């Protein structure tokens, strides 16, 4: 029987990503609180059925755990079963959205951790297809997806959330063609790719950045552009989401300081939701802001820094989801 390990050698896996009736080739562990030790819940090659998952959920369990040594097997399991969960209409919408989110985060986390731009780009293009499929299939999906999102400070979490938000906002603005929405989702997933070239100690600094550190961070749109510009499978609009998402309508943004209509509309969409996501998510030096405070901040930015019409549309989506 496999031994339960220390906390730093275990990774949480969302119940949403576990396919009922399927057998995993890795053991699953459970713990009732952060102070309790991990206990074996299901050994490898033992089926986990629908009732098991329902019972866990009824007891408020959101995650089981997998040993870090079995992480690759779990990733393969996700790839093998992700589509089944996503398209199983008998499962609750929130579970399917949760599965999408976990799969996107996990794939992006893996690509970003390797520092491999090509892997990240290929992953983003695949994930965009799934993202648009889920959000477009059902109007209720927007609310369901918003309920399952994480709000930590990891770049992969932020990229995933911004991608979902961009698709939701684009649809709200009347963009309905799926190929266009997929392009927007891909561009959004890659919008902070340039952070691969920013030292991690700056990205994760648990305090305000110095002026020099802020100057380093401000290089990421240009770094992202450099990583992507030569690719023939990305469009000009997608490149501009990466390069221009920190530009502001009044010319006070970066890296170029262009104004108004010179900022590509897709970059303007990305700018609105990028700020919203950043404010509502936890950072190493502060907790995420509540909705009321976030709305007040962005109401002040609307018109001068960000597109007012897009902001109003986004507010409405959040308020009615």
């Amino acid at each position, binding site marked *: 029987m496999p031994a339960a390990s220390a906390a730093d050698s275990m990774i949480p896996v969302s119940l949403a990503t576990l396919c009922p009736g399927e057998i995993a080739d890795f053991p699953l562990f459970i713990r009732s609180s952060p102070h309790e030790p991990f206990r074996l819940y299901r050994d490898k090659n033992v089926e986990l059925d629908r009732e098991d998952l329902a019972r866990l959920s009824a007891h408020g369990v959101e995650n089981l755990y997998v040993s870090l040594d079995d992480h690759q097997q779990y990733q393969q399991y996700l790839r093998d079963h992700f589509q089944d969960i996503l398209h199983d209409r008998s499962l609750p919408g929130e579970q399917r959205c949760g599965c999408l989110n976990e799969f996107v985060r996990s794939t992006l986390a893996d690509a970003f951790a390797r520092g491999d731009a090509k892997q990240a780009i290929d992953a983003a293009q695949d994930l965009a297809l799934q993202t648009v499929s889920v959000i477009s299939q059902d109007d209720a999906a927007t609310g369901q997806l918003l309920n399952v999102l994480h709000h930590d400070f990891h770049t992969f979490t932020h990229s995933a959330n911004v991608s979902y938000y961009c698709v939701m906002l684009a649809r709200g603005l009347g963009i309905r063609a799926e190929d266009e929405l997929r392009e927007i989702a891909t561009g959004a997933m890659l919008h902070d790719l340039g952070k691969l070239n920013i030292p991690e100690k700056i990205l994760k600094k648990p305090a305000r950045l110095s*002026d*020099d550190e802020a*100057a380093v961070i401000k290089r990421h749109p*240009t770094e992202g*552009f*450099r990583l992507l*510009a*030569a*690719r*023939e499978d*990305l*469009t*000009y609009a*997608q*490149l501009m989401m990466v*390069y221009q998402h920190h530009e502001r309508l009044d*010319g006070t943004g970066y*890296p*170029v*300081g*262009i*104004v108004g209509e*010179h900022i590509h509309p897709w970059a303007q969409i990305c700018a609105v939701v990028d700020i919203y996501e950043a404010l509502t998510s936890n950072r190493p030096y502060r907790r995420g802001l509540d909705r009321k405070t976030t709305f007040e901040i962005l109401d002040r930015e609307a018109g001068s820094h960000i597109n007012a019409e897009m902001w109003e549309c986004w507010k409405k989506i959040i308020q009615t989801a």
Partner: protein
Amino acid sequence: MLEEDYTNCLNKLLENCEHQLVIPSQLRDSLAKRGPTPPAPNDLRKFVRYHFNGLGILELSETFPSIHRENGVARVITRNVSRGGIAFLHSEQLFPGERVTLWLPSGKFNYVVVRCTAHHPRCYEIGADASQAEATLLDLDQLGVGS
């Protein structure tokens, strides 16, 4: 003889190119300056820069698959130069990594765009690097700039 041909060619291009660049008032004074430029905060450049104000012709030699560019040339105004690169004003935005050739009075030089800053919707300051273009570092004496 060859130099005369080049100079004539450059002058013809300068005459025939459209004046699309708009110089904002805050930049006009700086275009009359000479000598070394003062250092800027966070300045990571390797070499001293010198004011180098004059006309030139920009030719775009290489861009990226998704960036559409019209063929042709454009008038630019150079601002400063160092052994490692050059800054000039152009009426359009250029992107990092695009490759350009500048026709200056003392000859043609290849550069790679490093940065672009907007001063006006029809005035962008382009910083370009000579070393990345695999060209020899600039001989400032050749350009008539003091060392």
